[in-house]
């Protein structure tokens, strides 16, 4: 199990900070949900954690070691990334896309081994999309593309997984299916951080929530403590009731916005 630690991180583009003073730690087996309004810096924070942007200050640490200066192959063996499902440019088959997750494990100038192919197949199987293996990535549905990207990240065998709005543009059924996979990943010991626009999803799958507002971590803590009518009002400027239901003897929270009270 691995531990991701973000300490005093300042991030942005071309030396201009979008966010600063972001600190949190994430343990293997834990799911953290990153909430916050559009333009609050969620994607920029993720890009900085992934090393696609250099931090303007602070550090990203995994298992006590700063990621600064790590080679791409080494980084990719530890840190996986599920981007928002895009249309795709090249008509690779779903199996080939998943096999690309093995890139960091395959030696220079080698081709994927039988074991790599078997692992890709097994990952597709585990996510329930094995029937897509031969289909071109550019022709499957949005939900199937998102599952393919999750499978690709799993084939990478990362210890920390960063998911950027994995449920965006998915229909309701696929959103629920992706979130249930997220819980399974955590159960395997992976540390998962995902961003979403829907606080209900945090109630469904997250152990903790980080609320990123105007480039700062406004709130950080257990989901039930962070996602409250007060913080949602503060962050999104709308009025929300948080209602607790009981399902199979256990409490489940949901957000119910008030359209009347949110008008102003």
């Amino acid at each position, binding site marked *: 199990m691995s531990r991701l630690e973000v300490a005093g991180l300042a991030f942005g583009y071309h030396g201009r900070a979008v966010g600063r003073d972001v600190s949190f730690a994430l343990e293997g087996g834990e799911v953290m949900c990153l909430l916050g309004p559009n333009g609050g810096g969620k994607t920029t924070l993720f890009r900085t954690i992934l090393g696609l942007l250099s931090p303007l200050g602070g550090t990203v640490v995994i298992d006590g070691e700063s990621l600064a200066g790590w080679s*791409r192959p080494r980084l990719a063996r530890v840190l996986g990334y599920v981007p928002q499902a895009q249309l795709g*440019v090249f008509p690779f088959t779903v199996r080939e896309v998943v096999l690309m997750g093995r890139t960091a494990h395959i030696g220079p100038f080698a081709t994927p081994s039988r074991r790599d192919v078997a692992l890709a197949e097994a990952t597709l199987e585990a996510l329930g999309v094995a029937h897509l293996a031969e289909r071109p990535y550019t022709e499957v549905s949005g939900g199937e593309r998102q599952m393919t990207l999750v499978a690709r990240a799993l084939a990478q065998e990362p210890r920390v997984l960063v998911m950027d709005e994995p449920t965006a543009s998915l229909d309701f059924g696929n959103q629920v299916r992706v979130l249930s996979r997220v819980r399974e990943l955590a159960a395997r010991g992976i540390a998962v951080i995902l961003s979403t626009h829907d606080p209900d999803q945090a109630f469904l799958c997250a152990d903790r929530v980080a609320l990123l507002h105007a480039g700062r971590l406004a709130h950080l803590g257990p989901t039930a403590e962070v996602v409250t009518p007060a913080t949602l009002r503060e962050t999104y400027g709308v009025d929300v009731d948080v209602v607790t239901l009981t399902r199979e003897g256990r409490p489940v929270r949901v957000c119910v916005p008030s359209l009347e009270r949110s008008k102003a």
Partner: protein
Amino acid sequence: MADETLSALALSVRVAVLATLANAVVGIPLAYLLARRRFRGRALLDLLVTLPLVLPPTVTGYYLIVLLGRRGWLGAPVYAATGWSITFTWYAAVMAATVMALPLLVRTARAAIESVDRDLEKAAWTLGRSEWRTALEVTLPLARNGILAGLVLAFARALGEFGATLMLAGNIPGKTATVPLAIYTAVQTGEETTALALVAILTALSCVVLVIAGRLGARAA
């Protein structure tokens, strides 16, 4: 055709081919660096590479003499150590053609590289490909047609190079006199038929090259 006409043709082709190869080796990495990296001295490097495009070729040739001539900054130590100087050899013609053609390749290839979607490179990075392997396996293949068009233009420029070649390599028949120089000599000495034949050959070659570059450019767009 006279021996000197044939040797001018052979020399021109050899010089243009070698200058194009040198351009590929130097120019493609330069185009990648200018397109994708931010570093100190980038603007200066860009300026130096582009300058031969706007300077009179004789001025570029003069700088090459200052740099590589027997008493030049680099040329003098080489001459002192080996007794050899590049000036007035056919290598000098290759050098002059390389420098004169470089901006055409670098500018074309750079534009092609800049048009490659950066998200595709980042996808390769997050999957664990190093930057240089991503450049080799993702960026450059996607920019291929633009780079090839640049190489074709560089070849055409190298084939037609006159001023800088005359400055650095001289106009020695059978040794450094490429087709453009042989044409000049033929006109000066009144050998009208030789001049006409060489002009026709060079025009035809240039037309072919432009058509190829145009097709590659259309495919790149």
